[in-house]
């Protein structure tokens, strides 16, 4: 089995994943039956309607939640807990920052536990905070920051960690258009420099196409992978030229149509 798992050097392998939230009063099938795989060093974007189970999927992949059925393999090993070298940017960015720590300490904390030397840590933190546009917020507490700033701190924390696998759940939802563009470029740059495997949830179709090498389109629940669109854009992307490419427009229209198709399929089914 583990041999099979390693075939095609799949870094992340999700097989028949199903998750049902059940308590005495309510049973929700958050994820129906998901199967897909990411190669090492791939950047895939995940789009899907609100409530379709993207966050749930991410938490299963991160080893934070036990699937009801199916399994997740990371680098050939089944995920039974948070694997090392992984970073997650949570959708609830506000709640994922520790209010008792300053921004600097929040970003530095995972680095400390990665046993990175002090000087290097300092450098990483400074660079990450500068990269997300918060070079002067070190000493502030998260609750002294605006929503978008908090979200950027959460991103800085993940980025400074230099993970091998990066899971991001709508990480740019709270920032303005320009900052968003800058952050997109930051992620692409880091991805290329550090050879990370990235799974990126977004609601923005343009963003998905601009960022990803693949766009996974999920259907509404019971969630399935409705479509898997390869993004054949050049590796070197830039906000102005790439978005102006006819291929970009074609892809975004294509993704848009596939999403619509997913909705219609659901409506027809429902």
């Amino acid at each position, binding site marked *: *089995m583990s041999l099979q798992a390693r075939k095609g050097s799949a870094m992340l392998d999700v097989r*028949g994943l199903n998750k049902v*939230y*059940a*308590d005495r009063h309510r049973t929700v099938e958050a994820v129906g039956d998901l199967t897909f795989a990411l190669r090492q060093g791939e950047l895939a974007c995940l789009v899907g309607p609100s409530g379709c189970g993207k966050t749930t999927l991410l938490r*299963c992949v991160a*080893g*934070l*939640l*036990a*699937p*009801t*059925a*199916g*399994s*997740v*393999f990371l680098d050939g090993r*089944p*995920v*039974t*807990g948070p694997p090392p070298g992984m970073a997650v940017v949570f959708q609830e960015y506000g709640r994922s920052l520790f209010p008792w720590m300053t921004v600097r300490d929040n970003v530095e904390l995972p680095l400390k536990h990665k046993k990175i030397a002090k000087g290097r840590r300092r450098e990483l933190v400074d660079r990450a905070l500068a990269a997300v546009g918060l070079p002067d917020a070190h000493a502030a507490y998260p609750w002294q920051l605006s929503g978008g700033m908090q979200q950027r701190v959460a991103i800085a924390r993940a980025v400074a960690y230099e993970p091998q696998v990066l899971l991001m759940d709508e990480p740019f939802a709270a920032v303005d258009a320009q900052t968003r563009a800058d952050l997109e470029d930051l992620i692409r740059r880091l991805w290329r420099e550090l050879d990370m495997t990235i799974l990126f949830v977004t609601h923005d179709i343009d963003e998905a196409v601009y960022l990803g090498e693949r766009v996974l389109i999920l259907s509404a629940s019971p969630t399935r992978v409705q479509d898997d669109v390869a993004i054949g854009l050049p590796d070197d992307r830039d906000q102005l030229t790439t978005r102006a490419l006819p291929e970009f427009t074609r892809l975004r229209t294509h993704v848009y149509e596939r999403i619509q198709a997913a909705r219609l399929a659901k409506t027809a089914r429902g």
Partner: protein
Amino acid sequence: MTKAKSAPVPHRAQGPGAVRGPLLGAAGLACLLLVLEAVPRLGLVDDAYLAPTSRIAVALAGEAGDGEFWTAVGDTLTAWIVGLAIAVAAGIVVGVVLATVPYLREATSSTVEFLRPIPSVALIPLAMLLYGTGLRSTLLLVVYASFWQILMQVMYGVQDVDPVAEETARGYGLGRWARIRHVVWPSALPYVMTGVRLAAAVALVLTITAELIIGSPGLGTRIAVAQNSGAVPDMYALVLVTGLLGVTINVGARMLERRALRWHQSVRGEVAL
């Protein structure tokens, strides 16, 4: 197969706690009693001073066959429940008022801090002068001691309100009372529950102590008699009964908590994941 194997460990899918909890608890109690049996048996202390569980059990059986024992349990329970109810009600009302009116809180804080550490034993002459050995004497001591526990927990609980939730309520024009009812109270509830559990035990302890010292009828008086007579197993049997009352109270509080705090992280975290 791998599917089964790969079922991640971090969270059990379904809480087996419903069945396992009480079993574990009973095991814990059994361990405690076992230690109590072993310590005198191993000669760590003379069994004339600390009776082993088996002898306590015999004495307990003897007590249980005595009608007066049950009357005493009834008396103690009455004093305890009434005292606790008064303390909880008063503590909650006063606590919420003090915590939500900043000036009032500041004006009373030094007085509260002054009164809080005054031991109930210092109030015994006062209680005797006012009410003699009656129920009210016990109640005075019980309420005085347990009131502060609730009050403090409420005051800390009220400040735990999430500011965004509070603002939401204010934004929709909810008045002070509505905010207390719908926002402040539920937020403070976890603290209050802890307060009630603390106060319940303190009230029980004080009920017994008051009976023991003042002589109001109840389990405490029986403990005093057993103590003065050197009837060690009987005394421990009565103490064990007190302890078991405490355990029962806690079971009740936990059940209440599972209902009232179903929404709270502490409860949902253990049930739902």
